[in-house]
């Protein structure tokens, strides 16, 4: 896609790839991300933000943020991605550019613990309730250990006993 050449001239692009003829992947630095997004929106017709996603690269100590944009006229997608430090992941919000980014950032904040400075609702609970552990979509969150600590070990027979009790009660009720 020609847009990649123009991006390479204007911004610091650390990697790019054409995945399909209607999908390109671009990697940039945190400093240049918002200029790239604004440039793509204003001059290249990538008017719509499709989604923001986060990937945990635990062994590299990085979080990857992917911003997926869509050009309705040329029918093309572009994914712009950056890497953040995993220890203290902070980034700027982009909800002033696209309003729906607010909810995507809120979800990433809850699930990965990335802090989006300036997002007004990111501290509100979206999906989880009273969550005190580390953010659950991080790869070092152990689901099995969490459920053992939270709900205890399951006794395999208890279900059968309850079912038996219910069926006995039902028989009793029918006899009346």
């Amino acid at each position, binding site marked *: 896609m020609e847009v990649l050449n123009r991006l390479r001239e204007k911004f610091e692009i650390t990697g790019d790839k054409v995945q399909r003829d209607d999908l390109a992947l671009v990697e940039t630095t945190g400093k240049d991300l918002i200029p790239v997004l604004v440039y793509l929106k204003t001059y290249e017709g990538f008017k719509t933000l*499709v989604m923001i996603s986060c*990937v945990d690269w635990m062994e590299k100590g990085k979080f990857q943020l992917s911003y997926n944009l869509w050009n309705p006229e040329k029918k093309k997608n572009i994914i712009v991605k950056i890497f953040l430090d995993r220890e203290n992941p902070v980034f700027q919000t982009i909800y002033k550019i696209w309003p729906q980014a607010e909810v995507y950032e809120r979800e990433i904040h809850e699930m990965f613990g990335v802090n989006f400075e300036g997002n007004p609702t990111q501290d509100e609970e*979206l999906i989880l309730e009273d969550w005190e552990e580390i953010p659950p979509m991080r790869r070092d969150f152990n689901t099995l250990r969490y459920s053992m600590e939270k709900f205890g070990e399951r006794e395999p027979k208890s279900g059968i006993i309850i079912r038996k009790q219910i069926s006995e009660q039902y028989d009793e009720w029918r006899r009346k």
Partner: protein
Amino acid sequence: MSKEEVRLFIGPQHPGVTGNMSVEVLLRGDTITWARTHIGYLHRGFEKLMERKIFIKSFPLVCRICVPEPDTNEENFARGLEELAGIEIPERAKWIRTLVLELSRLQMFIMWYGGIAGSMGLSTPVQWGIGDRDYILDLFEELTGGRIYHIYIMPGGVRKDLPEGFEERVLKVMDMVERRLPEYDEIIMENAVVQKRLKGLAKIPKEWVDEMGLTGPVARACGFPYDVRKDHPYEAYPHLDFDVITEDGCDAWSMLLVRRREIDLSIDLIRQIIEKMPRGEFLAPLPNVLYWKIPPGETYVKSESTRGEYGFYVVTDGSDKPRRVHVNGPSFVHGITLLERLLVGQNIADVAPIMVSLQTCPPEMER
């Protein structure tokens, strides 16, 4: 919140809302002054679970992300993996997949057509919708073994070929559905209550469509011809002959008209698919799926569900499990960003019709 305002929760258990989600509203008299969507009642951590499973084991899981229309999930995930692993699927498999997708779109639209009437208190079409949908579920049961969750589409193609005489039975059901539709139209479209309530309801400013990323029937009701089947033709859609349906009213009535015409389009597409379907193989040879490793890469695949653009963002790292799968349903934007803004200034009684018009599906918001 002043003393003149009342705070009210609509849902999570409420006959008018679409699944388990709740809308918190502030009311001044009958008018909503502020709204906030609350989700989380259905969270089962699909995306997290998929990171711990080998690719083939995720297929019984992905179809559960959207209950009424599971095939979009399977098809998207399979297509993403095929793209990353470089697998070409046979021509017939593409056509069978398209048939399954269109059948599932049709059954969802029929159920929705009853549902929009139900949200305004017309309870007869709800029963009709669920009843007529069942004939299509019978077809699914014959084809895949399951009525709701099919687990039929898999990487490389589809699990089994069509049974003998299946095409005729599909056409028979299509004729039956087509015969029934005028009765629906009479009870819904020609109903004065429906017309009065839906015309002008949930008026969406046109500039919101590109700005917020609205897709599907919502965007098409605003006059934007956005349809993934045309914009990014996948599977057998490039070989099918159809036009994108648009209306220009930007309100709930236009969304109803778009979806009503989509039913006709789906029936037409299914007839075209059956007519043009080639013979041949239905499954490409795969490596041993229990030890299947996919090279590192990332991709975004999408398809047109009944609610709009449905996307899967798949990242692999060279191991036998996905690094990250992000399911992006259209309801995430429609049900939170758009709904919260649309409800302001509306009457409390119109919350259910607006939600059903946007066709919010909570399970796909909180995968």
